[in-house]
């Protein structure tokens, strides 16, 4: 399986803080790679650095072999990278429809694709003309993910989609992400929820102190409680 995204010795400074300290990893095409780690390990910074929202101070980031670490965020997005931030960042003054119209950068919304999205996010259809600011947390997360997949993307960067959501909504989001996986999407997913990580992940990367400290198959880590405790400080079961 080839690496769609490759990070080599990536360093990121935010002000005087040295957050990423030589991240090196590969995200294989067509698979879901989980990015795990303690709070403050550098997971969100990794996603933001890939997206160009924070500039890497050193190292190389390659998408399909092309270097992207010096590109501006819009240019990285135009290469087919979709981003779902931790904060969801839906445009609350815009309606659900307007949020998706903006996300469909290359043309009008495709009705067939939209129907597919509505299939697992029925709330978006129901509240099509409602201002996004009025939606519940779960519905905002649906909209945020829908915005990232409203057009075909090469790579999806998703940051803690289940954070702060009710268990029922988490289960539904997992089903949705599975469906996106089935379509062959390549996903780099930051997740703290063990169940979600185990259900969705093909591969796993574990971060600590701004570096990747473990890379392997998700199933292997899920089965190895001592390794989980070593890498994450507690088992994934406790990590929910």
């Amino acid at each position: 399986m080839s690496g769609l995204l490759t990070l080599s010795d990536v360093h990121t400074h935010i002000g005087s803080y040295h957050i990423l300290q030589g991240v090196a990893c590969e995200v294989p095409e067509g698979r879901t790679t989980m990015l795990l780690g303690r709070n403050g390990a550098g997971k969100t910074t990794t996603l933001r650095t890939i997206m160009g929202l924070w500039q890497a101070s050193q190292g190389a980031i390659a998408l399909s072999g092309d270097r992207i670490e010096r590109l501006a965020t819009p240019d990285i997005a135009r290469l087919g990278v979709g981003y779902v931030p931790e904060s969801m960042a839906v445009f609350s003054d815009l309606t659900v429809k307007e949020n998706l119209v903006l996300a469909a950068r290359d043309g009008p919304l495709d009705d067939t694709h939209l129907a597919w999205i509505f299939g697992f996010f029925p709330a978006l259809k129901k509240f099509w003309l409602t201002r996004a600011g009025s939606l519940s947390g779960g519905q905002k997360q649906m909209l945020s993910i829908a915005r990232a997949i409203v057009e075909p993307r090469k790579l999806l960067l998703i940051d803690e989609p289940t954070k702060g959501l009710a268990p029922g909504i988490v289960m539904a989001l997992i089903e949705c992400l599975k469906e996106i996986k089935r379509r062959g999407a390549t996903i780099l997913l930051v997740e703290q929820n063990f169940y979600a990580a185990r259900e969705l992940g093909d591969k796993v990367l574990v971060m600590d102190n701004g570096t990747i400290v473990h890379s392997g198959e998700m199933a292997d880590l899920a089965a190895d409680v001592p390794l989980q405790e070593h890498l994450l400080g507690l088992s994934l079961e406790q990590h929910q």
Partner: protein
Amino acid sequence: MSEMAATDALPKPKRDIAPVLLPIALALLMLPLIGSVSSWVTLTVASLAMGMMIFIMASGLTLVFGLMDVLNFGHGAFIAVGAYVATLVLLPLASFVQADSLLANLAVLLPAVLLAMAVSGALGLVVERVLVLPVYGQHLKQILMTTGGLIVAEQTLYALWGPQIIPLPLPTALRGSLIIGDIAIAKYRLLAMLVGFVIFVAIELVLNRTKIGLLIRAGVENREMVEALGYRVRRLFLGVFMTGSALAGLGGVMWGLYREQVHASIGDELTVLVFIVVIIGGLGSVTGCFIGALLVAMVANYGGFLLPKLALVSNILLMVAVLMWRPRGLYAVTNR
């Protein structure tokens, strides 16, 4: 996927119409205090006209504030330059301005307005590239740079035109009043109201019915996410900055014609008023800016009539009152 909250009923979003009702309530409240219907109509029309002109000048600034997070204290330079550019066209062609023909008046007025907007817009391009671009995200430096820009622009106008007040007579067709019973309504004020309202509607249509408008609204709220969707916000910023500058230039022409004079410190004088309107309205909100401009003008006109001694501080008092009611302005769009 399960129905997952899909069928949960959402609370109907409440339409926040309290700020919209404010100018109406204020106008009605003033009627018994003023006593005379004709005086009330005159003051109200004057307020609406003045408010629309201030709105034209402030609308660009509020978008620049909201979208770009730029504190442009040099916005007054575009107002002054617009007014002065209009004199370049209107004064040499005074015979057309004074002709008793609407067509002759328009033949010079329209080119004067368009040239003023073009020059102010072009100046906006230069200011954004030279003064603002190096200091994005640095508010203190923005204030220093743009205030410096305003001073340079003002002194350049002094150097080129001198310190004297330059008369800018109204075209003949716009002089005089329409008489309805014992009420006289100045024609120019009606025109100012019409132009301001048309611009307000046009901006609202662009913001709400076009993709560019969606981008501006989204960018005001979360610039980073708009970029993450693949849009080059920098170009959008520049377009908004230039449009805002051009509108300020138009406002300068209209204000100059309203006062029938132009002087180098016109922009400096109006900057404070324009900033009060932007703050009252809520940074980045065009609707808030529109209502704020009306309120400022009403308070100035009604206040000047009823309590002349309070006229000097009336706008500051209004701003304090509004911010005590709504600390982020009438319609808060950004989190700033």
